[in-house]
């Protein structure tokens, strides 16, 4: 059923992913090369840099949309996200906003949603101070610029960090690049366990504009489970299968199951929590997740160049602790579109379908009528 005014859009795509290509084909779109005139470009992060670099001199026209904001790293690089959220909290506090309310221990009531985090090597001394206060806590080290669980390790002795302290002293004059900066965060050591196993949540958030903020939460997220029983004891610190839920890590484990891939739908999680913990607390958990998402986006909305040609689909990772409090762990700019299982494929296909429906309503050529296309908050 072709509607009048419905053009056969031209799309370019950097990724050979069936959940994307099948969606484009189903809409009767025409593939073109990224160098040609496209209306819709699903680019990887590398191409985005080229498109928006000053050298390329590329100017997006009215009928073009692209799937990343130029400086999305403000949200999606671990250290920058933490920096922005810390600043956002400070700003709200200065304003005297009720959101910045604190409890008797001096912790934010509504804005305490990322684990205590320091940059390394920059904040090394601050970290040491905090570490000495609670020497028995476990910390998790993550390289800033890497994804999919690469380079992550757990720390419970200062000696494991010698390298970063020395580095920070010798290289004082050359600021470290994102490659060798790390964030070190307090490890959530009381995660909610289901069937004795640890999990984290992957939720999808579509942002079509930062100013004003317009974001959409996808209903079909999932929980990713570790294959091995959770064990907080120190001698298991090296067993990454216990701690990291990244599918790319879990896949290497011998207990990985290819039928479900350790993934559980958010609906199942909700059913379980309502059944075992009650509806009120379950609703509150998901409410809090939604609010945390909004806060994290608000925190960067001033920094992101709000290019009207851009939209972005983020993969939000949350960990829930055993008090049913969610913690925002990180935001991914390019959540995996590889399908590990058949229900995964259906879920991601529908994600892309919904996303395109929002970004290009009625499959109309974007902004071709000269006005900015209609966006609606649901």
């Amino acid at each position, binding site marked *: 059923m072709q509607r009048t005014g419905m053009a056969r859009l031209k799309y370019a795509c950097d990724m050979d992913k069936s959940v994307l290509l099948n969606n484009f084909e189903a809409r009767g779109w025409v593939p073109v090369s990224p160098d040609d005139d496209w209306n819709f470009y699903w680019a990887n992060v590398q191409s985005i840099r080229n498109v928006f670099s000053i050298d390329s001199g590329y100017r997006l026209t009215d009928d073009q949309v692209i799937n990343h904001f130029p400086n999305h790293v403000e949200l999606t690089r671990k250290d920058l996200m933490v920096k922005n959220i810390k600043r956002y909290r400070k700003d709200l506090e200065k304003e005297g906003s009720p959101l910045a309310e604190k409890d008797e221990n001096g912790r934010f009531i509504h804005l305490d949603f990322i684990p205590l985090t320091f940059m390394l090597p920059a904040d090394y001394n601050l970290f040491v101070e905090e570490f000495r206060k609670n020497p028995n806590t476990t910390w998790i080290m993550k390289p800033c610029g890497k994804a999919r669980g690469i380079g992550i390790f757990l720390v419970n002795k200062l000696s494991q960090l010698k390298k970063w302290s020395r580095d920070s002293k010798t290289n004082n004059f050359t600021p470290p690049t994102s490659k060798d900066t790390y964030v070190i965060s307090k490890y959530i050591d009381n995660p909610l366990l289901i*069937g004795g196993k640890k999990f984290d949540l992957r939720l999808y958030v579509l942002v079509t504009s930062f100013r004003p903020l317009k974001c959409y939460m996808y209903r079909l997220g999932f929980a990713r*489970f570790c294959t091995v*029983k959770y064990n907080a004891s120190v001698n298991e610190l090296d067993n990454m299968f216990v701690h990291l839920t990244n599918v790319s890590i879990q896949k290497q484990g011998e207990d990985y*199951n290819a*039928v479900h891939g350790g993934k559980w739908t958010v*609906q*199942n999680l909700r*059913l379980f929590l309502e*059944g*075992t913990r009650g509806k009120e607390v379950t609703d509150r958990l998901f409410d809090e997740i939604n609010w945390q998402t909004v806060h994290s986006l608000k925190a960067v909305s001033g920094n992101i160049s709000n290019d009207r040609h851009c939209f972005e689909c983020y993969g939000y990772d949350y960990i829930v602790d055993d008090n049913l409090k969610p913690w925002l762990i990180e935001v991914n700019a390019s959540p995996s579109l590889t399908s590990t299982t058949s229900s995964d494929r259906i879920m991601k296909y529908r994600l892309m379908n919904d996303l395109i429906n929002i970004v290009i309503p009625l499959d109309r050529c974007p902004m071709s009528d000269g006005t900015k296309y209609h966006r609606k908050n649901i």
Partner: protein
Amino acid sequence: MTDPNLSKIFMQTLIEDLKSSKIFTDLQNAAQIEITKPGVRLSELKKGVQAGLIHSGWDKRLKNAVFKYLQTKPRLQYPVTPPEHAKEPLLYLRKAQKSSGKVSTKPRLQYPVTPPEHAKEPLLYLRKAQKSSGKISTKPRLQYPVTPPEHAKEPLLYLRKAQHAWEKRILKSLNSMCTELNIPLARKRPEKEQKEMNSKWTELGVEGPDLTQIRPVYAPKDFLEVIVGIQNPNYHGDNNGFFPLWGIVQVPVKVKSINKLRLQYSEMAINQCQSGIDDSTDIPSELFDLDRSKLGKKVVNANHGPVAQEFSKKGCPSSLRATLWSQMLCVEVDDVDKLYYEQLKTSVLHHDLLVDSLLYKDVKLTATNDDQYFVFEDFLYQVLLPFSRDTFVLNHFSQNSATPPKSYIRGKLGVEEFSVLYPPNGVIPFHGFAMYVAPLCYLYNDPVILYYVFREIYTRYFYRLHSISSHHQGIVALSLLFEVLLQTHEPELFFHLKTVGCQPLKIAFKWLVRAFSGYLSSDQVLLLWDRILAYNSLEILPVLAVAIFSFRKTNLLKVQSYNAAEAVLADLTTLQVIPLIQLSLFSK
């Protein structure tokens, strides 16, 4: 006293059973505590103690105990002799007696002159027995014979025989697996292994036993073949009757008509709001959800089985389900139960049984690969392994047509003194058994409570889904009900499927045997089981199966082979069961 089952004798046995149960000692202890309380006056001792007991919730506990008894104990199969029968069992003779105006009070004489001892007891051998026991019976004997124990299990001889043959077959296949793989039915674990297993108790799934050689003893498919093969030797009905059945079940047992089912499930009618439909997030909660939750909380606080049952007929709100179910099943886990579970666990640690491997294998084949249940894998072992050791489960065999299998100590085959029940609970698991437990994991996070709820559901309902009996909730009657309903209400569909060589029951049977667990999405299974518990009946299962066939009718009418039909019905996870049931029960 409208219910004939609540006869004097029934009440007597009820009271006796209650007196011998733990609740009686608990009650005595509670009463003693009440007596010692300072507020109780000697002059009003009884009143004071009673008030105290009621205050501490004992009236509810007693009511629930009686409710449980009524729900689970087999009703007498033969009615108790009515008092007029003791006078004269034949109606026309009673009438004749009445019209003649005289009422005979003396026993009629059977011999011209009754010897005096006959008035006491006409049968010589009973007189002798009486004499030797030294007592004299003065009461008239019951005119109807007492139900023989095997009749309580299954009144029809040919079905008893069929069940017996089926059990023999299962046991044979179990034994041949033992011989083939050269593994014993049971062995004692060495101390070291016991300790190791104990330390891994909550993560048994990680390193289970080697299962490559183990295969399930049977699957629903094999069981269906047996059921299809059963024939009533006393029944010579041929298919030329005026209502020929197109289905494959040939056992003539009575099944309910759609009108009876409509009455039975009248609370599910389309004009009544239901949990699971009208509380969805798309509907404003003021319309139904708020009131429903409020009422639900009241019901939960009342803590009375029948109330919970009445409420749950319209489905349980998901946050109250766990409590409502344990109230309907009268499961309250106390310290004794916890201790008992620990004992079962210990006996798992001490001995390694072949059924353990069967259970492991079943979990690995079903739940572990299921994207809704894989997270609960370890919970399933913590329930299933102790279950196989639980001799309390044996009690349900008094109503189950099945009989617990026997095994013999090595070298003493066939010698009764050396026989043991195997496995200790008498239940040999089949392919899919673990799925009876899996949906419950969404409700109970504590393996011990999970265990007792499962045990109660199994011994009340699910055992009927894999034993041959004429009970109206047995799998035979449920299968027949499915076929009759489908033939009556979807004749075109049934005929088409039959013509292309696809008997509908061949597809639906596995759904019935598993009570749809693993076929529907998890929330839908729970909504369906709400109704099983609330209406105290499994008959909702064939109703849903028919509804699913009706719902996919358009596509099913296009298929030309069994495989194509199976493909149309392969994925049921998108279905909403309550609207479907309503559609098939109330729309026509």
